[in-house]
């Protein structure tokens, strides 16, 4: 598995990509390809794990047993998605505990969206609708990513994400059919989450240095701006069906190019959140670090028990 490119190895790798086949764990691959994958998959895994926190806040205060059960299932799914992805990352020769360490010491990132607070219960619906909707736009093409274990993890995840998005939309729909106060809660929530959701696709293409390389390697299939456009086009009719207003005065149908024109997200805000200056960055990472530390005795006890069983057997 040496990563010094020899002609036949590199050619084999390029051929596999050219035939749109998958690269598998023990295949030779360029160092840069491996590094890019580890960075992207780890960042994605961390996002799933940190993503349990904003909605987890509402687990004990969700308004009915039905809503609690749904939210619990969703938060468990996020944990599962994190584990599928750590498992895919480990096929590249990294270790999950190292990745966790990199997350809690801020050397690896997670999606900027999870650094925003969930101020009202309507946020649970909005996150399902917009945030998971945006995630689906990002993730569906990754089911055809060139790295086999990543693509297979994404297929599992996408199947489950559609439950996430539908439960969110249904929650909002229920509230929109309720009282004026409930409708106002939904609108207020959508006002807060719309722009951060658009930022989930990352910086605009001309400011996204890694995109071209990732596209050539077929790790990524579409540019940030293409996916953002797709998300807007998909979401506007859904907002109409719900009866909410998306907070963008520039949003209008452009018949000429067959898509919606929309305003520019505040890229400085995205930079700040990525730099660690978002409203909840510190809270999220601290909580993850605390959970890891507080779980230490469980890991130690289980390992001690396993050791004892092994020696007495």
């Amino acid at each position, binding site marked *: 598995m040496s990563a010094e490119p020899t002609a036949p190895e590199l050619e084999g790798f390029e051929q596999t990509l050219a035939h749109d086949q998958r690269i*598998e764990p*023990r*295949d*030779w691959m360029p160092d840069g390809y491996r590094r890019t994958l580890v960075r992207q998959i780890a960042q994605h895994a961390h996002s799933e794990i940190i993503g349990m926190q904003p909605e987890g806040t509402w687990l004990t205060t969700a308004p009915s047993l039905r809503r609690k059960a749904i939210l619990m*299932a969703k938060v*468990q*799914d996020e944990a*599962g998605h994190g*584990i*599928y992805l750590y*498992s*895919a990352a*480990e096929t590249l020769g990294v270790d*999950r*505990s190292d990745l966790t360490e990199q997350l809690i010491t801020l050397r690896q990132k997670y999606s900027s969206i999870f650094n925003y607070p969930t101020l009202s219960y309507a946020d649970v619906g909005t996150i399902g609708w917009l945030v998971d909707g945006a995630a689906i736009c990002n993730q569906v093409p990754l089911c055809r990513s060139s790295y086999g*274990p990543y693509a*297979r*993890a994404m297929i*599992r995840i996408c199947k*489950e994400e559609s439950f996430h998005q539908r439960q969110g939309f249904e929650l909002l729909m229920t509230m929109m059919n309720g009282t004026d106060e409930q409708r106002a809660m939904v609108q207020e929530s959508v006002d807060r989450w719309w722009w951060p959701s658009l930022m989930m696709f990352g910086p605009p293409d001309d400011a996204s240095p890694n995109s071209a390389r990732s596209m050539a390697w077929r790790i990524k299939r579409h540019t940030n701006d293409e996916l953002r456009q797709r998300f807007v086009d998909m979401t506007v009719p859904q907002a109409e069906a719900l009866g909410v207003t998306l907070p963008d005065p520039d949003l209008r149908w452009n018949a000429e190019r067959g898509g919606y024109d929309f305003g520019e997200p505040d890229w400085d805000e995205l930079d700040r959140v990525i730099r660690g200056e978002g409203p909840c960055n510190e809270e999220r990472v601290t909580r993850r670090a605390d959970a890891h*530390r507080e779980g*230490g*005795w469980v*890991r*130690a006890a*289980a*390992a*001690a*028990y*396993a050791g004892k*069983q*092994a020696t007495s057997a």
Partner: protein
Amino acid sequence: MSEVDPVWPPYEVFVRSKRGLNHVHVGSIHAADPDMALRHARDVYTRRNEGVSIWVVRSADITASSPDEKDAFFAPSGDKIYRHPTFYDVEDVPHM
């Protein structure tokens, strides 16, 4: 917590999705022992009735063919076309 976190080794997970089908590899999980590996595999890989049976195997215990020698390793089956039914020219005979 102590400085040295105990290592929970990785296990590969294989799931039989329904009776009559083979177990298929679905991913891996970490666990302290095989019983815990089974429980974790259930929680992670079968949250929606994806399985009726699970195998877990310590990842370190799997022996795999090497991709470097894939051509040579699989060559013995490559040139034995007479192992396939289509090798044989048979007149238009029923049930053949």
